[in-house]
């Protein structure tokens, strides 16, 4: 079976993939799908805090904007934050982990100690500290997340590489005279790719949650950005009367993170060679 088929055969993974596909689609098609695309920056002060109805599927917010439309547009920000932050973390963490794990020794130790420092504090705390100093903006959220997230990948890749290095086929490749670069890139990387992919999928979910928390704490995007976390924090003032105000973005976050987690779980089942061998 091809990877995609296997993926879709797993119910949980299929749901996850579906949710993420929906998110991407929603993000791309937001201007088309949104009933009130202008409401990202348009206000209708006479229509503040209307409960959900046929016109406003998710109700309206404190400025009278259509929440449904804003949440659709919020998907774009969410994707941008998650993709860039995780992308940067992967781009930094993977090579560092690979090199440190492959060569080991004191340079490897040093790299790992450096990542230890970052891991010594829960990621969100450090991200808060960074975002706080840099000031609230989407760019700074991405920066803070990237700066604090790369050690996770470095750690993972380091550990996996160390484990791989003990594998006989790696030793065999070295015995054949393959260069270090060749061994790292052609042998080790593909073999640890599944671990990286799984971590990345779950990492996307975690990133979205962290970004939302930063938004909630007022360290994220400025108004009137329809970022989900900040929408929830806006909504607090109007609870419990305007229950829909917080419910909609909260649920959106839930679905998306769930999507990434399910996909990650599914990918783990599919990509993990141990399980695959067992299935044969």
């Amino acid at each position: 079976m091809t990877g995609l088929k296997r993926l879709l055969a797993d119910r949980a993974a299929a749901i996850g993939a579906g949710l993420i596909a929906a998110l991407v689609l929603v993000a791309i098609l937001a201007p088309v799908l949104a009933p009130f695309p202008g409401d990202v920056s348009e206000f209708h002060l006479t229509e503040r805090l209307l409960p959900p109805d046929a016109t406003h599927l998710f109700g309206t917010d404190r400025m009278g904007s259509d929440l449904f439309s804003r949440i659709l547009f919020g998907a774009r920000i969410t994707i941008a934050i998650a993709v860039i932050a995780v992308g940067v973390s992967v781009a930094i963490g993977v090579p560092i982990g690979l090199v440190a794990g492959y060569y080991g020794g004191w340079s490897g130790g040093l790299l790992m100690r450096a990542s230890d420092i970052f891991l010594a504090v829960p990621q969100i705390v450090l991200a808060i500290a960074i975002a706080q100093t840099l000031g609230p903006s989407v760019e700074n959220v991405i920066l803070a997340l990237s700066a604090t997230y790369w050690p996770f990948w470095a750690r993972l890749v380091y550990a996996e590489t160390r484990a791989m290095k003990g594998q006989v086929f790696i030793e065999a490749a070295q015995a054949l005279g393959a260069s270090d670069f060749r061994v790292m890139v052609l042998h080790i990387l593909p073999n640890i790719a599944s671990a990286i992919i799984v971590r990345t999928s779950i990492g996307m979910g975690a990133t979205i949650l962290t970004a939302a928390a930063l938004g909630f704490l007022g360290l994220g995007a400025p108004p009137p950005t329809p970022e989900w976390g900040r929408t929830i924090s806006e909504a607090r003032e109007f609870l419990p009367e305007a229950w829909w105000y917080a419910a909609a973005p909260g649920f959106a976050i839930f679905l998306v993170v769930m999507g990434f987690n399910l996909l990650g779980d599914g990918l783990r089942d599919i990509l993990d060679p141990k399980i695959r061998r067992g299935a044969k």
Partner: protein
Amino acid sequence: MTEPILSVRDLHCHFPVRGAFGRQVGAIRALDGISFELMPGEILGLVGESGCGKSTLGKTIMGIQSPTGGGITFEGAEIAGASPRAAKDRRARLQYAYQDPGASLDPRWRIGRSLEEPLIIHTGLGAAERGRKVRDILAAVGLPESHLERYPHEISGGQQRRVGLARILMLNPKVVILDEPTSGLDVSVQATVLSLFRDLREEFDLTYMFISHDLSVVRMMCHRVAVMYLGRIVEIGPTQEIFAAPKHPYTQSLLAAIPRIGGPRVVDTFWLKGEPPDASRLPKGCRFQGRCPHATAICLSDDPALRGAGGSAAACHFAGEVSPPAPIRRALP
């Protein structure tokens, strides 16, 4: 007399045992002064219990493991300690076949790609030429071409061994170190694999170092046998001689342990007691002392050197003087 193609002199390989803080608290003497010579075209068997250092010896010769001391001469040149890449050309002619060929193949690479890899690393051949060579060798080890498209886990253990051999043969080696090439195979498969080794040796003019713990197989395949015990060669000599008249008590016990179908039941009479000591805590004196039925005071104090005449030698103070103890037949109901 011809020159040996490979000679090993007083080879040592120690693995540090580390405590907390990375402090070295001892060493596993995996190889502790190994010397022998390998003649062109011969098959040297290397037997010994698990963990006695057979694989380490093979890997140290290959340069996968760097030796702590001693020398290795291959085709007249010193290669001890040189990394595989440093002595790239020579490595092509000296190859190591892994104990577990399945594990020595990248699980994510198709067989064809794995077979091509040595050619990519060592030669400048074009893709078409590489393909031809791969197919030739594949045929030589008796595998259908369709297997090129398979992944390692999609073929059987016997076939994996063939692939492992094919990969090694890609570079036209002179000497091949075969590490336990039949362990884990059923007898019926083992027979075909062994005959393949014989055929390939003829066809490619190979010299083998044949590592195994199966004495019957070694007896069938090898010209000479070296018996290892805890990092040392305790006895070496022509196969016939060793099997006919083992001089070292350990060799004697090894031979005594082989079941003889139709013959007397060895388990009822087997006399060797105990297990090898921890490789990191070797006793002073002879390292077989704890299990040897003939051990005397000298065995506890002096480490016997490998000595002998002609092609054979043994490392025992009483080499050739002792014979296995009389089997004690236990009464059975």
